């Protein structure tokens, strides 16, 4: 593709959650991400977003997502400003809406928002004129993670239609799990979640979803497995037993992965707690797509930025 190619119009001005995106829209976005990977290497598109000012507003710590959004925006020629929450007025208790309105008045056109409260990006859409990209909100959604996971999976195991993906761990508190459930289901994937009962509570009523209560049942025949990060401080509070119990019953290792389809890959959104939810050998072994997930972060976010701006 060239800079002169006619822009494809997207009905989406924002990316708040992936559940409003159609299969075609997701597949087109993934194709665009593949093109972006090539154009990034070729240093093409270096002025595609030169009219855009992207504000990074991360109210929670992040390495992968923040850095890849920054690099993606810069690769497309956007001006990037990092709000650096702890050093800004937000750190003095300014409300989220007031901070975002300030960004808007200073010329920011797109905000990439990471926030601990589910629904924070909906508020940003309602109360500001900014284009809003959700970089993770509470337990609700992390749509660009789901997109890069879908791309990573597709490139590893081929067309996703009819494949079975198991998501294992603290599903209840995971925005990564929720966005993957939406995105992968839209792409035709059969989905299963597994975890201690407190960590899959409520998901038995999630449409089309299979809930497993043992690791063996969760992994059985899965074409790919996605492990979730255990927030170690949460384990006690949720009454799932001790961390030792969790390791005994739910930690993924090479032996347990034998339950899954042969050579089924393992994904993890990172950062991993090696030895807790996954063994170091598995995380760093031949099944692991964890590095590929990180690599796909930049091109997927380039595609999102360009597509939402109507420029690709």
């Amino acid at each position, binding site marked *: 593709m060239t800079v002169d190619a006619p822009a494809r119009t997207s009905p989406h001005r924002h990316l708040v959650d992936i559940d409003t995106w159609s299969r075609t829209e997701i597949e087109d976005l993934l194709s665009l991400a593949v093109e972006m990977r090539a154009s990034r290497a070729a240093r093409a598109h270096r002025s595609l977003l030169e009219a855009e000012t992207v504000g990074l507003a991360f109210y929670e710590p992040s390495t992968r997502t923040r850095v890849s959004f920054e690099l993606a925006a810069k690769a497309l020629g956007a001006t990037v400003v990092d709000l650096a929450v702890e050093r800004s007025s937000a750190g003095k208790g300014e409300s989220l809406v007031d901070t975002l309105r300030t960004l808007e008045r200073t010329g920011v056109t797109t905000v990439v928002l990471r926030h601990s409260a*589910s629904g924070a990006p909906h508020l940003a859409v309602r109360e500001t004129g900014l284009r809003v990209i959700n970089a993770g909100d509470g337990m609700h959604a992390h749509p660009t993670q789901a997109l890069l996971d879908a791309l990573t999976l597709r490139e590893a195991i081929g067309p996703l239609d009819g494949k079975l993906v198991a998501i294992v761990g603290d599903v209840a508190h995971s925005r990564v799990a929720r966005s993957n459930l939406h995105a992968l289901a839209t792409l035709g994937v059969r989905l299963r979640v597994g975890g201690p009962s407190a960590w899959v509570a409520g998901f038995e009523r999630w449409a089309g979803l299979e809930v497993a209560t043992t690791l063996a049942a969760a992994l059985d025949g899965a074409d790919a497995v996605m492990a979730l990060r255990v927030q170690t401080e949460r384990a006690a509070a949720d009454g799932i037993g001790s961390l030792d119990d969790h390791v005994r019953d739910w930690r993924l290792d090479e032996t347990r992965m034998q339950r899954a389809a042969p050579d089924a890959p393992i994904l993890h959104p990172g950062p991993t707690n090696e030895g807790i939810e996954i063994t170091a050998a598995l995380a760093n072994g031949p099944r692991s797509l964890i590095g590929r997930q990180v690599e796909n972060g930049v091109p997927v976010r380039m595609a999102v930025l360009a597509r939402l701006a109507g420029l690709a």
Partner: protein
Amino acid sequence: MSAGRFGYLTDAPASLLLAGVRVVDPADDSDAVRDLGIVDGRIADPGTVPSTAERIDGHGLVAAPGLCDLHAHLRDPGDGSAETISSGSRAAAHGGFTTVCAMPNTDPPTDGADRVAAIAARIADASCRVRVIGAVTVDRAGLALADLAAMTAAGAVAFSDDGGAVPSRALAADALQVLAGVDRALIEHAEDLGLAGAGVMRFGPTATRLGLPGWPPEAELAVVERDLALAEETGARVHLTHLSTAAALDAVRSAKARGVPVTCDVTPHHLALTDAWVGGDRTFAWDATGADQTEPSLAYHGDCRVNPPLAGRADALALLAGVADGSIDAIATDHAPHPASSKRVPFEEAAPGLIGLETALSVGVAAVDAGRLALPELIAALSTRPASIIGEPRGLAVGSIADVVVFDPQARWRVTAAALASAAANTPLLGMELPGVVRLTVAEGRVTYRG
């Protein structure tokens, strides 16, 4: 909304004739089209209304006993940013209410006889009667019992630590022992904080999808069962406010059948709105078709954050049936005004509560239109039954003080900030068109609102 449309309890008593109006009076179980007279602030034989008095064509209108709200937050005393007695009582008059019971979680809280008296002294020129509910515990802290007898003597009509339940069984038992002696009800906000945990919306598929911590129905049932047992043991009156679960209603129903001295109310929003509203749905419980009518731009709106949280459709319909069969004594608004700044935040950080004084009757009329309630059942739940719980007379018998609401059940109005007399506008009904327009409110013989 022009102040000229409002009157005050200090105005001169009214004389007027409502001609050919549908008079619905649960006090004598009557429902008939007839003339209704008011002379010098009292209900009068229409034939005795002076010919010089105002005559109102009542064709198509309904006249009923003035509405009585057992549960409102007027935020007065307070900083005035959300509501005052002045604005809140005008909101009441606009909504057809002639009596509002003010909850004690003010700043400072109403936890002593002096504070009850101070409020009573300031409500004389309000646009409705304001009855004072006293706090059960000192500073509403849930530690030491306040002087309930002294507050009763100063005029408190009931007691509540609303915002939460009386935290311990022992303290609730002590309170009921005192209240039995002064014949006042303990109004309980039934919520076990341990079971409620971090929940910010009702546990269920919508909470799971939205990634919001779920509030389990057991949090309500636990306190309801505790208080029903205490009422049974002590013989003192317990009133359970804003019930939100079918399970709690069932417990109340069976307690009533055993003769336990318990009454209860439900809010208009728990009858009509559901947890799907948090996800952006805006259809009433009785209209829900199961189809996805979610509007993503309305999702996570702070105006849908309320405690107890909006429940599922099955609960809402069960509560409506409870109003219809009388198991639920009253519809009470839990009018909870908040400044916009407390709602324009992420959902889980939003102050819980929504305003209801000006929309309660309309939401009820919508339920009537949907065939879920008969109009006389709605009127009884909004007027005579709540009034009896605080020992206030209600009814349209000749000779009684005129306390009347006149409304057009066919006409519709759009809920906008400008159309509301409340100083706040925190309701997810904002922008919606509702049936039921109040034309006239008469409180204690005075015209307090004309629409």
